[in-house]
């Protein structure tokens, strides 16, 4: 049984003030195996965030079915969510932001994940004192802290400079190797998806649905500046011209 299976017939937003309803997703179906890192790639506005919110259970107004596999002990799956903006509570310190999503008395876990993202020294700072890159690290640490069965990531590296993105990808992969989990990673950056994921699912423009599936078999260690990744990217762009424009920008 897959860790996540989704079959969304339709998700529509009511038009505001008499405007016609807008269909955001139509016929989107996918399945993700446990432990797999799947990237969802599509042009801006194709409904990627809408889809993640549905999977996270934040949005229940759609037709179709989404199921996240329960844990071995029968309890509901834990879902970690890294939002596009870090969404840290500004009135809680970094450590308090992480402990909020944990059971009480889990200081060891807080220290562990902060250490893993290299922010042990920042535990008592408040989010307004952090750079965007640091805030994003905290958001990633928070999501990993709950030992999620499914990790949702919504463009977690946008608006950062190239070097910071490189660092954060490295941090993410290191964490993921140490704490394996199923990842659904949304991005509009094709190169980023190719560097990170086991498998890419390409989404159409709105209303979004899966138009193609691209497995990436190259070991991650060899993906850095690999010609193979570049040729894979060129090939994808040749077949899916609609990705050009949003995805053709350099990584970061």
């Amino acid at each position, binding site marked *: 049984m897959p860790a996540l299976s989704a079959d969304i017939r339709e998700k529509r937003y009511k038009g505001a003030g008499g405007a016609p309803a807008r269909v955001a997703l139509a016929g989107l179906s996918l399945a993700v195996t446990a432990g797999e890192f799947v990237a969802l790639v599509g042009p801006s506005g194709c409904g990627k965030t809408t889809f993640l919110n549905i999977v*996270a*259970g934040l949005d229940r107004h759609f037709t179709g079915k989404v199921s996240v596999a329960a844990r071995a002990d029968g309890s509901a799956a834990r879902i970690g*969510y890294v939002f596009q903006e870090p*969404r840290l509570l500004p009135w809680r310190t970094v450590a308090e932001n992480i402990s909020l999503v944990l059971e009480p008395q889990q200081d060891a876990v807080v220290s562990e994940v902060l250490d893993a993202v290299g922010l042990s020294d920042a535990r008592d700072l408040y989010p*307004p004192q952090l750079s965007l890159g640091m805030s994003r690290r905290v958001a990633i640490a928070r999501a990993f802290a*709950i030992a999620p069965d499914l990790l949702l990531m919504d463009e977690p590296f946008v608006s950062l400079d190239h070097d910071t993105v490189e660092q954060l990808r490295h941090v993410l992969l290191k964490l993921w190797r140490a704490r394996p989990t199923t990842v659904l990673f949304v991005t509009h950056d094709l190169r980023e998806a190719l560097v990170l994921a086991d498998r890419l699912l390409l989404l159409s423009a709105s209303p979004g649905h899966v138009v193609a599936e691209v497995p990436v078999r190259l070991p991650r260690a060899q993906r850095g500046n690999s010609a193979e990744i570049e040729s894979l990217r060129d090939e994808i762009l040749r077949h899916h011209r609609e990705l050009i424009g949003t995805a053709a920008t350099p990584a970061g």
Partner: protein
Amino acid sequence: MVVAQRAPSWLSTSALVQRIGSVVLFVAVWQVAAAAIGSRLLPTADAVFAALVRECVDGPLLFHLGVTLARVAAAFVIAMAIGSAIGIVMGRSRTIDVLFDSWLVLLLNLPALVIIVLAYVWFGLTEAAAIGAVAVNKIPAVAVMLREGARALDRRYAEMADSFRIGRWRTLRHVVLPQLYPYVFAAARSGLALVWKIVLIVELLGRSDGVGFQIQVFFQLFDVTRILAYAIAFAAVIQVIEWVMFQPLERRAARWRD
């Protein structure tokens, strides 16, 4: 290091000196003016302070002050609790907001005196009517402020709390309430300022103890000295409450903004 530690304390001392200087200047002007006019209706500052000490030591000032403060506290707590609840519900539900908004406007515009008189007429000259009337005067203003706060709640934080399944109680306590604190403090400050003034009127109209009742007695005697003595004592206590309770609480809640 020594300089760095000293500078702020020296600065705050100077601010304190300025403040005290301003008070001393006020008392001096009052003293000179009263002495020059020489009327029984404008007593000198030293006469008022002498009366204040006399009323505290031998007179019933402390008793009446205590009674009035108890009424202020009761009315304040009731108004904050009910007003906050109404405001938050109206801020979260459009239907309820539309339904009751004009009630709120009506209540806001009703003069305090009308509410007090009606409360005494309908419910008798009782303690409950007195405190209730003061609370009702304050409730709509608290509700309006908390409604603003509830409308401004950030949906993105609620989604975060929701997706991590942290539970209703933790969400309310750690995600929702901290966003409302600035509105609660604003309501509490203006609330205290309003409540303690209205309490005196309630006491004057329908109670037989409290600062307001005493003011009425002295009014009938044209005893301006003791009216001023009571007024100064009461205003000073309210100011102290503001300093020792509200300001530290507010600083604590806002410490992340530094």
